[in-house]
């Protein structure tokens, strides 16, 4: 056993949240070391995400990230079999051929209302969730309550009508909310697809309005950054390094060392001990518990942690095409869009049904984007990359994954694409599929879940990831959770990492 230098903070996992936490702490003059198991940094942001849409401005500002989400956002095109695709570009909604869409006004009204609500909720996202120790009226919580009271005040400022609407819809389902405003079709389908993205839900599941608001947290615009998600990860890495953090890759952590109920460092898989005054982990809660040792967690906490809902439902499919893809009814310019195959809310719900029984969907909801226009280096000359997020693929289908089932997923997706891109199957040079199980294997995300833990209303705020451990501090003194399973949750926001770092400083464990 070799012991190397003592750090103020060791960060396990070099995903974007780990890097954000490291950067935030290093900026405060703390000695920080990030340890990443794989050779490359970035975790889910690199392997799974293909668009950037929820990066938080505070993180951008504090880390000095530049040039990521300040280009022109991608339009969304919701594809439909009859060719009457719907194009959504900001608040402009029309048919892809430029003609007026009858539900454009309803769409804008609904989404601007939701964005307003999302902004309100967003106030809770850049702080630790409210602490309720000692009940609601004890002195200790007055400070915590101030944050809530501010939310309450802002609610009142919304006006009675909006406030009533906020309280009505906050826990409800996207399907009803959307179909109350417009008939079912590709526009409703697009909203419902965004409401279920990454989560183990269908649009009829209560709570999906919250998911939709979360998706719209920063206005909902999606960006294809120059250089792809690789560039995003590089920006986070450079922020961490510039701030003085050390970054080590290709080193897995075997266990977190705990002495006298305090985190004291880690042991790497090669047996090396690294001492530290605090340890942060951006992996899932169960992995952190097991690395630190279950014995340091109360029985109830361990039970809650292992009951965390984290069934991944998104598969990533990368298709390398030898011809430039085109979609019937779309212009060349429109091919630089985010495509959704979600022709109706009902279809989105049907896409989810089989996943509940660990079956493969016959018609999955798909989000697709062609990466090569903005990043030609990604593929060999003349080749094109179509990146697809395929929703509602179970983590492990009945009987387990095998080649036949993987091929079945690819075939199902390609058959769907063929409807809109006739001839696409003949153009495929290579197809790389990452199932949720692969994603878990590759990144350590629990269940291969996009958000490390389901973003259900029973798993957010003061109960994320679990009741009693929602304030980043993870049972053992000096041990912190800083990944997507912590408040406010998933997506490339940078917030869990940032908030966790701030909480660590506030708790005074380094002083």
């Amino acid at each position, binding site marked *: 056993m070799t012991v190397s230098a003592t750090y103020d903070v060791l960060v396990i996992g070099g995903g974007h949240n780990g890097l954000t936490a490291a950067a935030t702490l290093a900026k405060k003059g703390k000695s920080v070391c990030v340890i990443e198991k794989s050779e490359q940094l970035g975790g889910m942001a690199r392997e799974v995400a293909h668009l950037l849409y929820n990066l938080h401005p505070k993180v951008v500002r504090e880390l000095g990230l530049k040039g990521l989400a300040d280009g022109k956002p991608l339009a969304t095109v919701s594809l439909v079999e009859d060719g009457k695709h719907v194009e959504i570009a900001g608040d402009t909604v029309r048919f892809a051929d430029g003609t007026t869409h009858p539900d454009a006004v309803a769409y804008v009204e609904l989404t601007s209302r939701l964005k307003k609500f999302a902004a309100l909720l967003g106030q809770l996202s850049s702080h630790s969730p409210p602490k309720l120790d000692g*009940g609601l009226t004890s002195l200790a919580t007055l400070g915590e309550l101030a944050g809530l009271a501010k939310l309450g005040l802002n609610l009142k400022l919304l006006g009675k009508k909006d406030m009533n609407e906020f309280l009505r819809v906050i*826990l409800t389902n996207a399907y009803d909310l959307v179909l109350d405003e417009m008939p079912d079709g590709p526009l409703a389908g697009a909203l419902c697809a965004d409401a279920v993205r990454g989560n183990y839900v269908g649009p009829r599941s209560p709570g999906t309005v919250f998911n939709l608001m979360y998706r719209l947290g920063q206005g909902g615009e999606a960006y294809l950054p120059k250089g792809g998600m690789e560039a995003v990860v590089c920006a986070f890495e450079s922020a961490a390094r510039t701030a003085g953090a050390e970054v080590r890759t290709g080193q897995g952590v075997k266990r977190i060392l705990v002495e006298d109920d305090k985190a004291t460092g880690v042991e790497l898989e090669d047996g090396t001990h690294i001492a530290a005054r605090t340890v942060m982990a951006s992996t899932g809660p169960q992995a952190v518990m097991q690395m630190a040792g279950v014995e340091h967690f109360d029985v109830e906490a361990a039970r809650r942690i292992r009951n965390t809902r984290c069934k991944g439902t998104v598969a990533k499919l990368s298709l390398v095409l030898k011809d430039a893809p085109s979609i019937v009814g779309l212009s060349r310019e429109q091919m630089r869009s985010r495509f959704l195959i979600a022709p109706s809310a009902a279809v989105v719900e049907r896409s989810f049904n089989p996943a509940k029984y660990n079956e493969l969907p016959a018609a999955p909801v798909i989000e697709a984007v062609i990466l090569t226009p903005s990043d030609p280096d990604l593929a060999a000359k003349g080749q094109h990359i179509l990146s697809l997020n395929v929703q509602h693929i179970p983590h492990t289908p009945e009987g387990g994954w095998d080649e036949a089932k993987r091929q079945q997923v690819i075939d199902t997706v390609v058959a769907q694409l063929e409807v809109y891109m006739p001839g696409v199957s003949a153009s495929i040079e290579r197809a790389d599929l990452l199932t949720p199980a692969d994603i878990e294997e590759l990144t350590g995300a629990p269940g291969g879940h996009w958000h490390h833990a389901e973003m259900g209303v*029973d798993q957010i705020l003061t109960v994320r990831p679990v009741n009693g451990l929602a304030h980043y501090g993870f049972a053992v003194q000096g041990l912190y959770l800083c990944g997507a399973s912590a408040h406010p949750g998933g997506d490339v926001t940078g917030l869990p990492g940032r908030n966790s770092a701030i909480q660590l400083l506030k708790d005074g464990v380094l002083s």
Partner: protein
Amino acid sequence: MGQHDKFDAIIAGAGHNGLTTACYLAKAGLKVLVVEKNDWIGGASVSRSLHDGWTYSNCSYVCSLLRREIVRDLELPRFGLQVIPYEGGASFTPDGDYFAYYSDHDALRREMFRHSPADVDAYERFSQTVIRQCRFIRPFLLRNAPDPSSLRPRDLNELLFLLKKAHGLGARELGETLRFWTMSIGDFLDEHFESDLIKAHIAGAGIIGTGLGVYSPGTAYVLLHHYMGDVDGSIGAWGFARGGMGAIANALGACLEEAGGTIVTGSGVDEFLVKDGRITGVALENGDTYEAPIVASNMDVKRTFLEHTEEKHLPEDFTRAVKRFKIRGSSGKLNIALDALPEFPAAPKGAPFLRGDMHCSQSLNELERAYDDWKEGRWSQQPYFDMLIPSQIDPTMAPPGKHMMTVFVQYAPYDLEVNGIRSGENWNDETRKQFADCVFDKIEIAMPDIRKHVLHAEIRTPWDIENEVGLTEGNIFQGELTFDQLLFNRPVPGYSQYRTPIDGMYLVGSSAHPGGGVMAAPGANAAREILRNVGKGNLMPSHAA
């Protein structure tokens, strides 16, 4: 009846809530009229004799939720109401076994041990959580839901009461409460139990009457809604009303009569009469009109405002909100006259669990698939049902040696899909029979010879329930029990306190807080509001005040 054309208050609909409101108002000295479209009273709390010698509780069928404060205020036992607790329940399996829910605690533990040793203690933990949640929620049933967007002292008071209760929980329990209220019954049970059969047995209470599946978030609360009742203080216990559920309506009717109220049956409200934003009375379908400064509707919020009130009297926002109110039919019912008690090959003769609720659902996934069918407009191919034979306990329900069986079935759609078209009109004798056959096939798991004992079966679909009882889409709760339609959101935000946009007009049915089930709380709460508004709040009896 023409001699009284002017009343102090008119109640439209003689369901248990309408009658409850009427009783409280009449006891406070108001001259009260109840009008009812059917020739009988009770709404969905009825006993009907549809086969000679048999009594069917053909809508609601068991009693637990009826608030004891109301029973006491209105002296319902004196008017003939008796509730007899039943003795457990069971879920039967195709391989000839069963899980029996014994009321005897030791027997229940042994039975759980037989199925899954790890689940025995888990059940105690489950019960503790559920009972704690029931204890938390019950004080709110007979109170107004505060309007959080209001600054009126009363709303702030109610809000404070809620905060105090929440404060009393402490941080840990508050977190557990938030989770419980937002999670699915399926996830909740998965956190506690291992046995599929035990989970399926309990899960029914999380979906009964809703358009949700066992894995839909929010269904743990629905379970609470079914558990928060009691039979004589025993939380979660259920019983039969002797003589069928009509006994509740009849006792309320008798109470009302003694208090000097009037009931007119056989013609329903055609229109609520409004002048200058004030209610003036009702016009009946038969052309009669009655005047009153107070009119309360026991009909659901959609029926009341979209069908029987002129739109011009209502604010646009309100009408919009009422239109989007979710009130989905999801359940059907079989009421069956049996020539004898069927054989239960798996169960010992005379086993107590046969005198309770019986089911044949095997797993949460089976229940979830049943929901998937319904979403597509089909009845469940593997339906969930809640099946009881009350005549084993209550001899008034069937002739000696014969039996009456009630089977609540879920899911059955209101707008049945046939050849790609979804419509209630698709329910006809043929589809009804197919639906019943599907249910009988599954009942055979428990009672293989059931079909040969059937003398008569009334098959009720959501479509039929709407047409007969008047519940929109046949929804038994007058509106989904989802958070967007609970507490201050019920029935629509801003109108959660039994009032409506029309002066003097009130909503007293289950569309109002705290919602459905034969609880009578909306009726009592509405009466309290009405009396307070006419300056007679002091005349509300103390138990429900």
